[in-house]
Every structure is written in C-alpha cells, then in structure tokens.
C-alpha cells in the first residue's frame, strides 16, 4: 500500500512536470480542462435544442435541485481528496438531517431543531471517521454499513411516515425566497463552496487533507496524527450533508427517510466530472461546483426530454466510468 501511494506521488509529480513540454497529449489536457468546455457546450446545446430549458421557471428549478446535491458534493470533496474514495452514507445523513429538522422544529422551534440535526451529523462523522481514520478500515464498506444503520434507525423512529413543515414560518419563507431567478438555497450552496474552498486551499487542515491524499505514509512520518485528519474530512462532509438536509427540507417542506436516494451517486459524479481525482490528492472545491452544474444540467435535460429514470441512471453510471477512465489514462500518458 505504502509503495503504491509512493508511485502515485511520483506519477502526479511527473505528470505535472511533463505537461508544459508535451502540449500535444490530449488526454491529460482534457482531464484538466475538459469540464469547462463540456459544461459550456452542454448549456449552449441545451439552450438551443431542448424546449423549455432556457425558461426562467426551469432555471430556478435547476438551481433548486442542484443546491442540496451541490452542498453534499462540495463537502464530500474533502473525503475524496483525502484518498478515501467516497462517503456513501451522505444519503442517510441528508435524510436524517431533513427529518430531524422538520420533526423537531414543529415542536421546539428552529434553533433546537438545528442543534438536534447537528448532533446526528456529529455521530455520523465520528463513527465514519474513527472507523476509517483510526481502524484503517475501507471507507466504502464502512460508509455502506453506516448508510444501512442510519436509514434503518431513521425508518424505525419515524415509522416511515412523511413529516410536513408548517404552512408559514421561517422555514417555508426561506424555502420559497428568491433573489431574481436564484433561490436562497443556491446562495447557500455558493456560500458553503466559498467557505470550503478557503478551508481546503488556505488552512493548515486543508493542506493536511491534500497531503494525506497524495501520500499517506509520508504525512504520517511527518509527525501528523493522520487519524485526526480523516475524522476532520468526514466532519466536513457530515456538516455539509446536514446543511443540505436543511435546505432540502425547507424547499420541499416535507421530509421522509427516502428523500435523498441517489445523492451519493450524483455527488460522486459531480466530484469526478469536476476533475477531482478518485486516486486522492488532486482536486478542488470550485471544480466540484462546476461538476455540480454539469450533472444538474445533464439531469435536467434528460428529465425535460422525458427520458425515464432507468436511462438517467445508466447515463450517470457511464459518465462516472468515462470520467475516471480519462483520469486514469491521463496519468498513464503522463508517466510515459
């Protein structure tokens, strides 16, 4: 394992060095900058060819649907960059946060509801982070099990019922408020992105997350408590998923345990398409935001064209595999 990460570092380093001298190799360039062109082309093509895409109602709808997925994705970027593949349990985390938020706020008010959702997020972060960071367990399996545990607990306590928010009040007001065509939830997404981009690129913790992704053993030999860094990365993801749950609950004014199905997958697609490497170490929060735009617009086009759920899943699955393939092949080209 240690040797593998070491070769990864060498690959990354060589890839960066050789890129200016080798402008003709298409794959690394595409892995680096392709997303800008593809996103622009996709939006342009959709505006021209897809009926009803360029309407104000639809654009607001895209923002509404992109906001919670986007908030999850920018948070999960930390786990991906730290070299731990992904956090599947965001599905359970978003649903837990949304259900707790609405159920508690109906009785005790919004601040206590936020506090209760925070407690749940802390529990998720601690279980995932300690199992992955200190027990060195596989992140995919750990978060798969916490997904089932979390959804199971939620369904047991909620009885599978749907929670409704009050017809008027601060939550409803926030969920429906807009600034021009942009709903407040999208503004939250931008705010979260800016904060997390600052944390990842400018703080000591962000530096440790990135260096852990590049080379785990070197980071540990450098005297860093690596377990604490991983717990931190899962904390960022859990807090983002919590905020996404609030936003989702406020927008739909209902909460049920199955409301965030597929968020893990769409968030991962956004992160990978944005150019963050699943091999760890490489990537940025702002790129993930771009990936979110791409995935949301793509999903919106598929929905507007009356393409069924099955085809949407196939399209997103292929998108992930293609994006990872380009990333993997560009690394091979870089070492040649």
């Amino acid at each position, binding site marked *: 394992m240690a040797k593998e990460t070491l070769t990864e570092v060498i690959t990354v380093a060589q890839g960066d060095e050789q890129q200016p001298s080798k402008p003709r190799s298409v794959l690394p360039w595409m892995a680096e900058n392709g997303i800008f062109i593809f996103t622009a082309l996709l939006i342009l093509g959709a505006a021209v060819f897809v009926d009803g895409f360029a309407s104000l109602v639809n654009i607001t709808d895209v923002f509404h649907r992109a906001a919670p997925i986007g908030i999850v994705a920018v948070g999960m970027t930390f786990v991906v960059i730290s070299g731990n593949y992904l956090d599947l349990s965001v599905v359970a985390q978003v649903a837990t946060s949304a259900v707790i938020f609405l159920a508690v706020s109906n009785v005790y008010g919004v601040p206590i509801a936020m506090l209760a959702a925070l407690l749940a997020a802390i529990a998720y972060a601690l279980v995932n982070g300690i199992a992955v960071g200190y027990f060195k367990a*596989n992140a995919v*399996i750990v978060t798969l099990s916490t997904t089932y545990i979390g959804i199971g607990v939620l369904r047991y306590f909620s009885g599978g019922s749907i929670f409704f928010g009050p017809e008027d009040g601060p939550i409803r007001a926030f969920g429906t408020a807009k600034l021009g065509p942009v709903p407040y939830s999208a503004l939250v997404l931008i705010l979260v992105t800016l904060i997390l981009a600052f944390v990842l690129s400018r703080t000591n913790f962000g530096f440790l997350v990135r260096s852990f992704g590049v080379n785990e053993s070197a980071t540990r030999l450098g005297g860093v408590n690596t377990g604490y860094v991983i717990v931190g990365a899962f904390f960022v993801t859990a807090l983002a998923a919590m905020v996404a749950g609030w936003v989702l609950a406020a927008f739909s004014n209902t909460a049920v345990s199955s409301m965030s199905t597929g968020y893990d997958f769409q968030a991962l697609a956004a992160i990978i398409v944005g150019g963050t490497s699943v091999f760890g170490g490489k990537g940025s929060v702002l790129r993930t935001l771009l990936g979110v735009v791409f995935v949301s617009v793509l999903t919106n086009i598929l929905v507007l064209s009356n393409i069924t759920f099955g085809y*949407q*899943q196939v399209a997103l699955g292929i998108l992930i595999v293609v994006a990872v393939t380009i990333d993997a092949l560009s690394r091979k080209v870089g070492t040649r």
Partner: protein
Amino acid sequence: MSQTQSLKLGSSDTSFLGRARLVVARRTEGRGVALLAIILVVVSLTQPLVFTAYPVSLGRIALIGLVALGLTAVILMGELDLSVASTLAVSGVVMALIPDVWLGILAALAMGLVIGVINAFFVAVVGINSFIATLGMLFALRGLAYILSDETPVRLTDTDAGIAFGQALIGPLTPRVLIFVLAFLALQIFVSRVKAGREFFAVGGNRQAAYDAGIPVKRRIFTGFMISGFVASLAGVINTLERTAADPRAGLTVLLASFAAAIIGGNYLKGGRGSIVGTLIGATALGVLQVALTLSGIQVPVQEIFIGLILLLAVTTDPASLRAVLGSIRSVRQGRSKSRA
C-alpha cells in the same frame, strides 16, 4: 534463557495442542466462528423455530452465501465487486424476458460473464480502482434492469418450471441449496487445489511479486471478476425461478448481507488472506440471524440495523485494523509521556 524458550517451543510444536494452536493461528476464520457461535447460542435459546424450520434457514443461507462466494473470489485478490446486486437484478430480468426457460438461463449466465469481463477490463486494463469502477457499474446496471423491465416486475413465461424448481429434490433440499453446495465445493477446490486458484492469493498478497514470479496477473483478475459476475447471475436465475417473476429492485437486501458474510468470514479486504470455508461460516451466521429476526417479527429496518452493525464490526475488527488502533493508542501515550518529560 533463549535456549529454554526455543526448546519449549520445539516441544509444544510436536504435541497435539501445539499443532492445534499452529493450525488455529494460520486460519483466518476465527471471527466468523465466534460470531456463528454467539448467534447459534442466542438463537437456540430465544428462537429455536429456526432449527425446526431448517429448510427456510438453508434457503436463506444459500441465497446470501452464493453471492458471497463470488465476492470472495474477487476479495482474495484485493479487489471488490460492488455491482453484484445489480448483476443479480439485471440477469433475472433478462431471463424472465426470454420466453424459453433454458435459453433464458443461458442468456442470463452469459450476461453475468460479460459484466464480469467489463468490470475486469476497467480494473486490469484501464487501471481504475475496483471500488469506483464497480460502483459505476452498480448504478448503470440497476438502470439497465429498470429499462428492460419497464420499472415493474416481469413475470416468468414458463411458471411451471419455476414451481418445479421450488420443490425439494433430495430429502428436504431444494435445488437452490444443492446449487449452493455445488458452487461451494467447486470454488473450494478451485482456490485450494487448482494452480490458477492458488495464484489468486499471490495476486492479492503482493501484486508486484506475483507479476515478477510470472503469474498472469491481468488474466487472474479477469477470472476473478468473471466468477463473481457468473455467480451473481446464477443467484439472479435462482431468484427468478423461485419467485416466478423478476424484480428490477431485487438484490438490495442481499448486497449488505453478502458483504458482511464474506468479510466476517475472515477475507481480508486488501487481499491475500481468506478462505471459502470462512465465507460459508459467515453466510451461515447471517442467514440464521436473518431468519431468526424475521421469525421473531422484527421489522425490516431493524434487521438492516443489525446487519449493518455486523458489517461495521467485521470491517473494524480485522487483525490489521486492530493493530492500527493499538499503534495509534501507543503513539498517543508515548507522545504524552515525552511531553511530560
């Protein structure tokens, strides 16, 4: 001092207990046996119906175990196949869509092999991590199952074949259990007696060393993923025959249980260590647990909590994990004593 120690070791090696200790130390199934023992004791005290209704329990064990067997082949090489549940669903739908039963079975099994080849291509040739590649396949294949079935369960054309398949064949054993036993024996012989199967351990233990020793690593990865794809589609065929219908949502509950069975059975996720027998022990433990929970009238969400907890326990109580935790506790203590001094 050292001489007496080595003498003691030497003498204990030849005694029966010493040899037994050596055998136990070499085996990887310890945690699986412990879990199975606990579950059997608790279940026999609280829900003895599980043992009197043993055909039900055996069917459950066979369902979990079959998928877990295929997973084991991949895990031994340090890879993972997350797409097994979707493979199960899609091959079941393919089989139900074809009017002729035998042709349907053949098409479904071929589908499983093709899925295995695609997975292995991305892992061995392109070089994508198997967690991510098979995760993409997990969603793509689930979507394909929805497309092919129009999002509703597909009825089997030849329902008589399905009903005949559900009947007990030898004693109380249904064909499902017999197929599971055959698959278990075949894989056990393959992994422990056939050269290609023995090489799985080498590929998982140290891939570079295996490559240097002349083992065709890429071909072994293809073999492994084809086994797991084939076995998953076999489970899909069995499911469709027994229920005389193919559900595109099938396999969601099996996924978690089969992972838990393979991992608690002592198959190390980074590869190189593990056994087919361990997977059988793990599948038995989880099958008995599931049937006991169902018979006790415990709701599905709570059952999922139980199995999720076992999976979490399985993946964190691996010897390497425990060593990592002990190491970090020790380093924290040392750091404290240093800062005090």
